C-alpha cells in the first residue's frame, strides 16, 4: 500500500513479472431504480506484459464496465464482488468500490483516491469511447495533453513540451498540431491525439474502449495501424474493447468473448475465429459480414440479449442458441478449459469442435432476380445539390449575389436505378450519400438536374390500389370512385425535382416511395406507440377510414418484418424496443403502403453486430416478396456486397466508380475504391492496414480540386489530374470509373511509386 516514488516505479516496471491486470472472480451489480442489474459476473482474466487482449461482445454485455474497473472507476451504485488488481495493487474490490466506497472513513477514502490517482494514467491509461469528441474546445492540444503532465508529474514547462511532442510522434502526429484547437483537427487526428494523451505517462497498460467506432473505414484502418505499431514498439499490455470482430482480430492475440456479463469464451484470437468452441462466438462469426464470405448466407442471431433485470438462470444464451436443450435452461455452464488456453462456457462445446464457423448454406435468395436493364424506376440526370455557406454577416445578407461558397454535396450525378434491384451507394462520411437520398425522396430540393420517377403500369394508381390491399374489397364505393377519379390524373412518370410538395404527383410519389433512416432511435417519435408509427402513412394518405382495416394492414406490415406476434408490439414505445426492433418498426412503416421504391440510409450501421445480418436478410426478403427497388446507402462495403446488385462509389458528391457489385468488389478500378476495399479490417492475419493506399482524410466539399475530386488523396495522382476533370472509363458491361488512366496505366504508375518509395 505504500506509495512508490517515480524512480523506483520505473525499476519495478521491468521487474514486475506477475500479471499487469488481473481479475479475480470479479463481478459488478448495479442497483438502479428498476432493480438490480448484473453487469459482470465471474470474470477471471490475467493480462501480462506485452500482451493484447481483445474483449468483444454486443452492446450491454459489460465490456465498458470491465474496462473502466481496471481504472478503479466503478459507478457509485455498483456492488462489486471479487477484485481487480493492477500490477498487484487492488484497484477495485467489494469493500472499497461502488456502494461501499461511501461507507469508508474519510481518511481511508483519501488514501484510496490518492492511490488510484497515482495508478491512473501512470500505470493504466484509457482511451474512452468517443473521447475524441470530449476535448475541451477552448484548449489547444498542447494544453490538453499538458494537463496530464501537470497533474501527475513535477516536470517544468519546457520538459512537458518535449514530452508532449514525443508522445504525439508516438501516436503518429507531428508537432504542428500543438497549437491547434480540437475543431481544427480531423477525426483521425483527434483520435491520434487521444492516443497520445493515453501514452503520455508511458503506462504499462493501455485500455482502448471502442477505439475506432465512429471513424470512417479508411481512418479506422490507419488507427488500427497506429495501435499495432505502438503495441509492437513498446512492451505494453493493451486491452482492446470493441464490438467489431475485425478490429479486435487485428489487434489482439487473445480474445475474450463477453455475453450478458459472462465470459463465454477465451482463447487465442485466430484459434477462436477459426474454431469457435462456443455457440455464441459461432453465431457472432456467422453474423459478421466480411468481404471474404459475403456471398455466403449470413445468419443473424435470433432473439435479443436477455433483459438486464431478468433472473439469471441456466445458460443466458440458451434461448438464442441452436444447440440448446433443457440442461442449458436449467443448469449454468461453467467456464471449462477445452484446450490449453482455450476456455469456453458451454455444455455442448464438444459438438462444436467439428463445426466450421462458415455457414454451409448457400444464399439461395442472394441470386438476384432478373432485372431488365431498361426498366428504370428512378432516373437521375445531372443532379446537383449545393448548400450555400454563409461566411459573414454581410455574406448572409447578400449571399445570393456576392462571393458565397457552396458545399457541393452532390455534384452532377447521373444514375439509373432499375426496377427490382438493390442499388448501393457507398462512400466515406461526407461524400454526400445521405444528401443524395434526401434529394431523391424530395426532402431536399435539388439545386439543378432532374429526378424522374417511373411508375409501374399504365393504369396509374388505380392498379396500385389493388396491389396495396389484395384481398380487401373496396367497401365504400363512393370513396373508391373518388379516389379512382383522382388516380386517373396521376401520370405514370413523375418529375420529382420540378413538382411542388403539394402537387398531386408528389402525393402519389410519397405513396410509392419510402425512406429508412440510419438512426432508428431518432426516426421514431418517442411519444408514439408502434401502432401509431406504422399507422402514420395510412393516415397521411387517407387509405382507409375503417379502423379494423388499418389495424390489419399494420399487423401485416409488422409480421412482414418479423415482429411477431404484431399485437404484442402495438402498444410499445420506441424506448421499450431494442435497436433491431426499432429499425424493423421503421421498416414496417416503410412497407405498410407497399411502396415500390425504398431508400435505406445506412439502415444497419447503428445496430448491434448480431442484428445486422438479420436486417440485411430482411432487406433481401422484402425485395424478393414485394418486388421493391432499393437504394441502399452505406459506408460498409461488406454489407453492400451482401445485399446490393449494383454499386456506386461516391466521393465528395461525385460518383467515381459504378458497376455490378461483384465486378466492383473483385476488380476495383478506381484508386479510391481500391483503398476502401483494402481498408476494411479482415479477421485474417495477413491484412495489413498500413497498406491502404490513400492520403489523409476526406476533405470538405467546399474547396474541391478543379480536376479530379480525388486528386489530393490519390497515390496515383499526376499533373493532369489537378486541372482536368477525369473522363469516364468503361470497363465492361455497366462497370465504369472516373479516371484519366486505364487499368494498365494505373498499374504502371503504382509500380513507379512503389519503386520511388523504396
Amino acid at each position, binding site marked *: 500500500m505504500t506509495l512508490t516514488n517515480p524512480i523506483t516505479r520505473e525499476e519495478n516496471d521491468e521487474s514486475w513479472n506477475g500479471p499487469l491486470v488481473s481479475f479475480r472472480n470479479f463481478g459488478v451489480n448495479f*442497483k*438502479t*431504480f428498476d432493480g438490480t442489474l448484473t453487469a459482470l459476473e465471474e470474470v477471471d482474466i490475467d493480462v501480462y506484459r506485452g500482451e493484447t487482449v481483445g474483449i468483444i461482445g454486443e452492446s450491454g454485455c459489460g465490456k465498458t464496465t470491465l474496462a473502466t474497473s481496471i481504472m478503479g472507476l466503478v459507478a457509485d*451504485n455498483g456492488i462489486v464482488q471479487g477484485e481487480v488488481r493492477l500490477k498487484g495493487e487492488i484497484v477495485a474490490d467489494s469493500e472499497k468500490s461502488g456502494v461501499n466506497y461511501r461507507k469508508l472513513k474519510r481518511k481511508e477514502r483519501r488514501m484510496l483516491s490518492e492511490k488510484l490517482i497515482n495508478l491512473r494514467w501512470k500505470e493504466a491509461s484509457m482511451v474512452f469511447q468517443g473521447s475524441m469528441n470530449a476535448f475541451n474546445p477552448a484548449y489547444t492540444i498542447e494544453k490538453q495533453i499538458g494537463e496530464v503532465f501537470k497533474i501527475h508529474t513535477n516536470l517544468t514547462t519546457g520538459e512537458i513540451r518535449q514530452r508532449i511532442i514525443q508522445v504525439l510522434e508516438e501516436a503518429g502526429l507531428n508537432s504542428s498540431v500543438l497549437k491547434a484547437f480540437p475543431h481544427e483537427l480531423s477525426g483521425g487526428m483527434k483520435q491520434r491525439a487521444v492516443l497520445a494523451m493515453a501514452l503520455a505517462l508511458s503506462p504499462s497498460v493501455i485500455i482502448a474502449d471502442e477505439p475506432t467506432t465512429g471513424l470512417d473505414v479508411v481512418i479506422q484502418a490507419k488507427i488500427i495501424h497506429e495501435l499495432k505499431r505502438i503495441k509492437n514498439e513498446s512492451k505494453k499490455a493493451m486491452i482492446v474493447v470493441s464490438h467489431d470482430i475485425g478490429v479486435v482480430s487485428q489487434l489482439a492475440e487473445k480474445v475474450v468473448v463477453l455475453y450478458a456479463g459472462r465470459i463465454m469464451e477465451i482463447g487465442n484470437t485466430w484459434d477462436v475465429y477459426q474454431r469457435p468452441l462456443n455457440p455464441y462466438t459461432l453465431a457472432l462469426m456467422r453474423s459478421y459480414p466480411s468481404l471474404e464470405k459475403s456471398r455466403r448466407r449470413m445468419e443473424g442471431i435470433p432473439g435479443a440479449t436477455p433483459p438486464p433485470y431478468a433472473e439469471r438462470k441456466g445458460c443466458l444464451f440458451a434461448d438464442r442458441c441452436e444447440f440448446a436443450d433443457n440442461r442449458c435452461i436449467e443448469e449454468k455452464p461453467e467456464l471449462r478449459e477445452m484446450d490449453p488456453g482455450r476456455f469456453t462456457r458451454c455444455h455442448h462445446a464438444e459438438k462444436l469442435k467439428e463445426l466450421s464457423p462458415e455457414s454451409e448454406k448457400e444464399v439461395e435468395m442472394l441470386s438476384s432476380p432478373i432485372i431488365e436493364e431498361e426498366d428504370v424506376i428512378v432516373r437521375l440526370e445531372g443532379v446537383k445539390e449545393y448548400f450555400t455557406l454563409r461566411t459573414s454577416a454581410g455574406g448572409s445578407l447578400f449571399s445570393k449575389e456576392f462571393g458565397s461558397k457552396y458545399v457541393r454535396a452532390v455534384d452532377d450525378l447521373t444514375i439509373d436505378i432499375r426496377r427490382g434491384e438493390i442499388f448501393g451507394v457507398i462512400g466515406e462520411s461526407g461524400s454526400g450519400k445521405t444528401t443524395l437520398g*434526401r434529394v431523391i*425522396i424530395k*426532402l431536399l430540393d435539388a439545386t439543378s438536374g432532374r429526378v424522374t420517377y417511373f411508375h409501374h403500369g399504365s393504369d396509374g394508381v388505380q392498379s396500385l390500389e389493388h396491389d396495396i*390491399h*389484395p*384481398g*380487401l374489397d373496396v367497401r365504400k364505393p363512393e370513396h373508391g370512385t373518388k379516389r379512382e377519379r383522382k388516380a386517373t390524373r396521376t401520370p405514370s412518370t413523375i418529375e420529382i425535382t420540378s413538382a411542388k410538395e403539394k402537387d398531386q404527383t408528389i*402525393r402519389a410519389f*410519397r*405513396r410509392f*416511395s*419510402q*425512406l429508412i*433512416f440510419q*438512426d432508428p432511435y*431518432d*426516426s*421514431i*417519435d*418517442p*411519444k*408514439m*406507440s408502434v401502432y*401509431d408509427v406504422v399507422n*402514420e*402513412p395510412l*393516415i*397521411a*394518405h387517407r387509405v382507409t377510414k375503417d*379502423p*379494423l382495416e388499418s*389495424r*390489419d*394492414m399494420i*399487423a*401485416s406490415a409488422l409480421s412482414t418484418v418479423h415482429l411477431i406476434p404484431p399485437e404484442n408490439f*402495438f*402498444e410499445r414505445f420506441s424506448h421499450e424496443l431494442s435497436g433491431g426492433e426499432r429499425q424493423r418498426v*421503421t421498416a414496417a*412503416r416503410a412497407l405498410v*403502403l407497399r411502396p415500390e421504391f425504398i431508400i435505406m440510409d445506412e439502415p444497419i450501421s447503428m445496430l448491434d453486430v448480431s442484428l445486422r445480418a438479420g436486417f440485411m436478410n430482411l432487406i433481401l426478403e422484402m425485395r424478393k416478396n414485394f418486388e421493391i427497388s432499393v437504394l441502399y446507402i452505406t459506408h460498409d462495403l461488406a454489407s453492400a456486397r451482401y445485399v446490393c446488385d449494383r454499386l456506386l462509389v461516391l466521393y465528395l458528391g461525385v460518383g467515381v466508380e459504378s458497376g455490378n457489385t461483384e465486378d466492383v468488389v473483385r476488380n476495383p478500378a478506381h484508386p479510391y475504391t481500391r483503398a476502401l476495399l483494402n481498408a476494411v479490417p479482415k479477421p485474417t492475419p495477413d491484412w495489413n492496414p498500413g497498406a491502404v493506399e490513400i492520403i489523409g482524410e476526406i476533405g470538405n466539399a467546399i474547396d474541391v480540386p478543379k480536376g479530379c475530386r480525388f486528386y489530393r488523396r490519390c497515390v496515383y495522382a499526376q499533373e493532369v489530374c489537378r486541372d482536368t476533370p477525369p473522363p469516364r472509363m468503361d470497363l465492361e458491361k455497366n462497370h465504369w470509373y472516373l479516371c484519366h488512366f486505364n487499368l494498365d496505366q494505373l498499374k504502371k504508375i503504382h509500380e513507379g511509386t512503389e519503386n520511388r518509395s523504396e
Partner: protein
Amino acid sequence: MRESGTARSDPQSEKERLRQLRRRRIGFQVSRFRKTWNIYYRNAYGKVGFYILLFFVVVTILSPVLILHKDPSSYIAPTIDTTVPSLLSHYYVGNDTARQNQISSYGSSATVSGSNYVYTINADGQIKALKLFTNSSSTTGRVFDLTNVSIGGSTPISMSVFTLVQSVNVVTYEETLSNYILVATSSGIINLTRISDVNSNGALIAPHPVIWQSTTLHNSSFVLPPISTVLPIDQSNIPAIPFYSASSSLSGSGSNVGRIFAVTKSTTNSSYYLTEIMDSGLSVAWTERLPVSSPPSGMQVYGAFFAYSGPQLVVVTDQNSMYAYRMNGSLAWQNNITGVSYTGNVFIPQDYQRSPRSYNSILATANGTSSSVLYAVNASDGAATSIFQSSSPSMTAISSSPGSTGFPSTVAAIVGNDIYILNGPNHLQEKLSLASGAGSYGYNPLYDPLSDTFIISTSSGSLYSLSRSLGNNPFTWGLEAPTSLKGISRPYLILNAATGLEAITFRAENGYVYVYSGNGKVINPIPPTFHTPSGNIFPLGTNTAGNDVWSQFIASFPTDWLVGISVGLIGIVVAVIFGIFIGYYRGFISVVLDIITLTVFLIPFLALLIALTSVIKPSLTNVIWILSFTGWPFITFTILGIIRSLKQRLFVDAARVSGAGTLQIMRRHMMPNILPLLSYLISLSISGAIGAIATLQFLGLVPITIQTWGAMLNSLEENFFLAATAPWWVLPPTIALTLFVMGFIFVSRGIDEVVNPRLRSR
C-alpha cells in the same frame, strides 16, 4: 392479411372485433397515463406539489360553503364586534357576592370639586365610596371606607343613593349637592344618612356620614327593597331636573327626601303590608295591608319628579293584579290580567315621572306559560293594554327612551336573547338578536340620553350599546365580559358634571368595581375569534377596515385560480401559435412575429404592467389580459426552440416521407412532443401570474376590490408592523401565496421527471 380478410366476412364478429379494438386502445391510453402518473407520483416534489394543489382545489370548490360573507371586500364586521368601551379604571372594594343592589348609583357631592362617588355595600354592612373623576389627580379613583351599618347578624338587602340640592348660594346660584344613602337590612331596619365631602369652611375632605337615622319595623321583613319617592332605585337614568320640595323636613337638606315605601311581611300573621315612612325621623306614616296572598313581585313610585304635588302613586304588583296607592295610603285603582302574571318588572318612562298627563302609563311585563306580554297600564285609571306579545315566556327586561306623547318614542323589550324595539303599541320596529351564552339579560337596559342609546347588560358582565336610530348596524359597541368577572351587579350610568362624559360602572363578583367609558373605541383589526356579540365568527379576525379576513382569504382562492389559469392558458395558447409558427415556418411573417415577440419580451415586465394598468381600467378581465400580454413571450421562446429542434428530428422527416402534411405533423408529432413541456410551462406561468397580480395589488396598481391574496397584503405595504401586530391577517395570504406558487413549482419538478427521464435519480 388474407387470413384476416376472410375473418372479416362475418359482420357480427366484425362488430365485436371493432369493439375489442376500441377497448384495447382505451385501455392502452389508460395504462399509459397510469405509467406516466406513477413516474410523476414517485417523485417527492411531484407528490407534495400534487397534494398542495389538491388542497387548493378542494378549498376552491368548497369556497361557497366556507365563505362566511359574500362580497368580502365590502363586508365590514358589525361595530358591536369591533367597537368596545374602554376600561377607564377598576378598583378593589372587597370580595363579595354580587347582588343586584349591592352597588348604588353615583353622586356628585360638590359641584366645586366635580367629584363623582360610587357607593357599594358588602354583606357585612361595610359601605365604601369610590371617588372618581376629580380634577385633582391625587384623589382620582380613591376608595374610602365610609361607614359600617350596624346590622347585628342581619344582612343588607338593598341600598339606594339619591342626591339632593343641599344649599344654593344666593349670590352665584351655585348649588351644593349632597348624597343620601338608604340601606335596608334583612332584620327590618332602615338606615338613612347624608354623605358630605366638604367641611364647614367648604373645603374638600374625605366623604363621611353627616347625619345618621335609623328605624326598625318590628316583626317585619322586607319583601321588596324599600324605595324612596325621590329616586326610585330602579330609575337608573340620570335625573335631568333637580328635586325641589316645598317642605323639606330633613335637617340640613335643602330639599325633601320625601317618603320611603316598604313592602313587608309580618312575622306574626304572614300578611303583606305596604308601609310609608316619612324621611324626617323615619317615622311610619301609615301601614296598609295588601290584599294579596302571595308575596308581591314589584313596586314602583309613579310621579317621582312631579315638581308640585300631583297624583303621585305607589304601584305594587302581585301575580295577576296591580295595585296603585295614593300618598295617603288609599287605593287609587287596581287591575287584573288573565292568562299571564306580572313578573314585578314595573317600568315608568322618565317623562311620565315628570308631569301628570292623562296618557301616562306604567309598563309592566307579564309572563305566562308559553307567552309573555308587555302591558301599558294607564296611570290614572289602571287600564292595562297589551302593547307587545311574545311567544316566548321569558320577557326579562324593558326599557324606554323618553317620550312626551302618548307612547314613549322607543320601547325595548328583551325576550330571551332577542331585543324587540317598539315604536308604537304593538308596532315592532326591529327585532335584534344577541349571542347566547353571554349571561341572562335580567337587568333593564340603561337609556343613555347623551348618545341616544340603550346600554344592555347581562348578568355576566357583557355590555352592548344599541343605538335608537338602528339602521344596518344598530349596535354602536359591544363588550364581551371576561370570565374573571363571574357576574355583575346592576350597572349604573354616571355623568361627570364637569367633563360631560358618561361612564358605566358596576361591581363584579371578583370584588372589583369597573368603570367603562360610555362611548366605544374601534379595535380593528381584531384577532381570530369564534365568539362575538353579534354571533358572527371571525376565524381569522378582521383587518383594519373591519373586513372579515377569513372570507377574504377564502374568496381569494377562486379568484387566484381564475387569474392563474386564464393567464396561463391564454399565454400558452398565444405562445403555442406563435412558437409553432415561428419555429416551423421560415419567411417574412415568421421573422416579423419573432421580432414582435422579442419586443414584448424585452420590455421590462413591471414597468409595462405599471404603464398598462394606469392606461387601462384595471378590472379583473383587463388584468388577466394585461398579465397574459406580458407572459407569453417567454413561453413562446421556449416552445420555439423545442419546435426548431423537433423539426430537425428524423421522425419529422419520416412523417414527411410518409406523405404527412404540415397539419398532420403538427398534430401528431409536434403537439405530443411539446405537451409535457406545455404542462410544465403552464404550471410555471400560472404561479407567475398569481405572483404578478399579487405584486400589482401589493403595489396598489390594481384595486384591492379584486379579491386576491395580493389584495389582502396591500395594507402591509403602508405598515409593515401589521405582520407583527396582526399576523392573523398577514400570514394566511402570505402562506397561501407561497404554498400555491411552490405547489406549482413542485408540480413542474414532477412533470420534469416525466419529461426528462434522464434526470431521474438512480
